[in-house]
């Protein structure tokens, strides 16, 4: 990608804010061991449920652990799962969806039937069963989330390719002797990129939300490892008396997902071919 779109993102205010937020979250995740004031599992039963103070900026939780440190460490887990699952879903979904939309025929049928199958089985059920079978590790969680989200990417990409396929520039390219791969890669996918990017950012947010939902139902990252999801669940019983335990990770989820969405918006606007000038 050339530098020009990036420059455009910087000019686009919303995208900039989102980008900064995303970068901050990523940095937090990467530098967690260095910036967290305490460990994520240091308990101190005498200091349970303390409100935010100078010693503990976001207070302590039910076991006396520092909430701020756990939110920082939690970003690692949530982001790891989020990125991995999104990447998997995107790669598989885009590849299969564009193939289906472009080539049509048998490829279309087989791929779309597979996507239908995955979307027909209620996602939560699939996740629950897989987690019960194989255990709730980070990798499993990411895998199973991508299993239930790739199909929606495929469907959307396919729809885009279907409508793009009928356009003049495709016929023109074919007439000029361009191969299928080139048309797919250069023309279709690039034109479908805005849609894919919107999908990606939605997905990133979605996977973080799905992970927290899993934790809500009792699965997902295992204690004492903090993920924002299981922190909200742990904090729920204290909502009336120690609201910060659930509110802070909930806020973290919200801000992160917001950041991704803002950034995605900015990126999409920057990559819009109309803004790129004549092609």
């Amino acid at each position, binding site marked *: 990608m050339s530098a020009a779109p990036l420059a455009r993102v910087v000019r686009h205010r919303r995208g900039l804010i989102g980008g900064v937020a995303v970068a901050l979250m990523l940095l937090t995740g990467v530098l967690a061991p260095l910036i967290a004031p305490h460990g994520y599992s240091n308990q101190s039963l005498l200091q349970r449920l303390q409100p935010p103070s100078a010693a503990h900026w976001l207070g302590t939780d039910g076991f006396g652990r520092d909430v701020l440190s756990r939110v920082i460490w939690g970003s690692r887990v949530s982001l790891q799962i989020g990125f991995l699952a999104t990447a998997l879903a995107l790669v598989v979904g885009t590849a299969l969806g564009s193939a289906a939309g472009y080539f049509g025929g048998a490829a279309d049928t087989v791929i779309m039937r597979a996507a*239908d199958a995955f979307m*027909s089985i209620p996602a939560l059920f699939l996740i629950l069963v897989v987690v*019960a*079978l194989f255990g709730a590790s980070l990798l499993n969680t990411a895998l199973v989330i991508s299993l239930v989200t790739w199909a929606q990417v495929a469907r959307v990409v396919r729809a885009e390719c*279907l*409508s793009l396929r009928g356009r003049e520039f495709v016929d023109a390219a074919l007439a000029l002797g361009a191969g299928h791969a080139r048309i797919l890669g250069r023309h279709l996918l690039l034109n479908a990129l805005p*849609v894919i990017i*919107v999908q990606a950012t939605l997905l990133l947010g979605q996977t973080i939300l799905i992970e927290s939902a899993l934790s809500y139902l009792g699965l997902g990252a295992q204690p004492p490892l903090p993920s924002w999801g299981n922190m909200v669940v742990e904090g729920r019983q204290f909502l009336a008396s120690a609201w910060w335990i659930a509110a802070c990770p909930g806020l973290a989820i919200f801000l992160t997902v917001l950041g991704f969405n803002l950034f995605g918006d900015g990126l*999409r606007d920057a990559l819009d071919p109309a803004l790129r000038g004549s092609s």
Partner: protein
Amino acid sequence: MDVDAGLRGYVLRRVGFALLMLVAVSLILFTLMRLAPGGPEAVLIGGEFSPAVAAQIRERLGLDRPLPLQYLTWAAAALRGDLGRSFKTGDPVAALILDRIGPTLQLTGGALVLALVAAIPLGVLAAVRRGTVWDTLGSAIALFGVSFPSFWLGIMLILLFSEVFRLLPPSGLSEYGREADPVSRLRHAILPTLTLGSIQMAAFMRFTRSSLLEALRQDYVRTARAKGLASGAVVWRHALRNALIPVVTVVGLALPTLVGGAVLTETVFAWPGIGRLAVGAVFERDYPVIMGVNMIVAAVVITANLMTDVAYCFIDPRISYR
């Protein structure tokens, strides 16, 4: 016209595949379910668990027979319309589903309507008045909505409206003894529908906006404008129809939630819907209920996908089916 014959063939082929799909899904579900360790006896016996009694229960429920035989027995009965009886309660699965699907449809249907009614106008407004205050406001609302964890939103709403302000009830379908009371039903439905609908609305709105923006930039729109067509006509007749493709996709994607149940919302609000039924059944290894609910959901989704695909044909005349 040639399109009709092609369309007919396409639909027929799809229907055939749909049926095959149902069989495949049932096999996948069945296998996955049985692979998970433990069985219904754990929940049925509870704290007095003893392996001898557990074995007795498994025998009585037919769980000691070979797996293929169990599957065929279930499938044969299902084809006759008999989805079996719940291991836990002994009630017919079909009756259980019918009982619980009403509340779920009420919740998800209401949320979907709320979402669409709010999203499409907002999305159109934001796209058409791009860059203005409307766009920023609408986009901000949508952005926020999409970023909330649904269960968190639900919890916060309950905290606010039920505990702090004491305006609305925190859970359930209605007060006890007032099932037929529409006012009670409405009051209880507000928070859950709002929770579920807000998030869907946000997603729809963003999609409407982005795809409408796409459509508005197309050549044919510029052509139409150049030809002097009024702006409104351009938007409605040309751009919106094309913009609706992804929106129809997204609505289609929302359909599994429609029937499969918004599990999290149902859990937070103790809503007696089908999503909670299915999840509970997984934790209790209530195999007939798991199979029954998931097969019904699968059937609905497969049908819905078929219908949205057919809908594409009418919305976008350029999509052809070779």
